[in-house]
């Protein structure tokens, strides 16, 4: 007979809350840095010099064709033998940023390449510098175009961060594991953690949908 006892897990709510907060913090930092890296790489892929384009291409392909957990293990376990010692939290952030950066680069590039030529020419004819053209004319509508894809990718990275518990970064799945190792309520513990992840992913998606037009690319007219 199966008997489930969620009480024993829910009694540990302070730890679950701490884990959830840490997951969100980890995601927030990684999202800001990762999207920044992605935009830089997207620029390089679309407009950069040939050698840079090739280098970024290698980076993007390497990351997109290997599992996140292997990237994380390589950074956390592999780099110390080169003398780079990282604590679990920093290693997690680096892995998430590097991972998101590669996916965000492809997304950002798609947005940048969708810019009508006339807009760039118009901006140049107003004597805007190349940096101004990119940051003020090309980037905001490009981000607006690809924001749904970017949002999905950030949610995927948040869900992927569950793996960071494996190197003892103290995020949600780490605490779920800790709780089940104390009270042996493994199934209940992971059910609760899964439900929290589901809530976090809905929350994160809503927040990003609101955040994008409000703060990141402004209310640009959607030209399609």
């Amino acid at each position, binding site marked *: 007979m199966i008997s489930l006892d969620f009480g024993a897990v829910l009694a540990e709510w302070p730890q679950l809350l701490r884990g959830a907060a840490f997951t969100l913090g980890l995601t927030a930092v990684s999202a800001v840095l990762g999207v920044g890296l992605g935009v830089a790489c997207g620029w390089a892929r679309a407009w950069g010099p040939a050698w840079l384009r090739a280098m970024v291409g290698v980076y993007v392909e*390497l990351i997109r064709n290997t*599992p996140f957990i*292997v990237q994380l293990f390589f950074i956390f376990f592999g780099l110390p*033998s080169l003398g780079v010692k990282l604590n679990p939290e920093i290693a997690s952030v680096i892995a998430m940023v590097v991972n998101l950066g590669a996916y965000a680069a492809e997304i950002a590039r798609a947005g940048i390449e969708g810019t009508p030529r006339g807009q760039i020419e118009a901006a140049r004819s107003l004597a805007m510098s190349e940096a101004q053209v990119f940051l003020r004319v090309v980037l905001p509508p490009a981000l607006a175009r690809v924001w749904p894809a970017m949002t999905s990718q950030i949610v995927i990275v948040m869900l992927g961060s*569950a*793996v960071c518990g494996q190197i003892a970064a103290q995020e949600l*799945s780490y605490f779920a594991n800790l709780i089940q190792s104390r009270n042996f309520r493994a*199934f209940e513990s992971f059910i609760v953690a899964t439900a929290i992840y589901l809530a976090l*992913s809905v929350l994160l998606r809503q927040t990003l949908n609101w955040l994008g037009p409000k703060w990141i690319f402004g209310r640009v007219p959607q030209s399609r």
Partner: protein
Amino acid sequence: MVDFSLWDIFRNLLMAARWTVLLSLVAFVGGGLVAMALLLARLAKLRGAQAGVSAYVQLFQGTPLLMQLFLAYFGLALFGVNVPAWLAAALALTLYTSAFLTEIWRGCVNAVPKGQWEAAASLAMNFGETMRHVIGPQALRIALPPTVGFLVQVIKGTALASVIGFIELTKAGTMITNATFRPFTVYACVALMYFLLCWPISAWSRRLERTLRRGH
């Protein structure tokens, strides 16, 4: 003390990679079958299928694959059976794959012009005939590139099966690291193997997409 040469590391990883390939194939084929059943239930407008499948997709796309693996592993154990890791991994990955594929394929079916459905209906075709002769072949063409692309996600997803103790490429990497104390080399080799497995498939998917776009 056994000495591991680079070739020993590589050879052992290569052996373990077979399990990664096998698990990927099981999850991909099994997930494809489940996804097809879910899609047909949805298209045939079975009662409750719309809401049910949509909730199913939400559930699997909104939670970490790692948690799904843990739930399959400990959930099956609740029934008093001692589940081997490969079974839990295969089950979780199959369900995960099915949720993504059914959503991808729904988009492909939706991409077939509505007039095609109406034309089939006007020829008095029933649901099965419409799918087999009209919608299916057209949707299949559109579906091929993203489906092949998703295979890469499945292969990368199998890496998480290492966490519940299934000995595939990643787990083998961890074990060899513990024996050799050379994490840098070993994990670089592991990553390289995943890359060699996934990159040709990614490239193939991209080529299919280009061909499809040119055809239009």
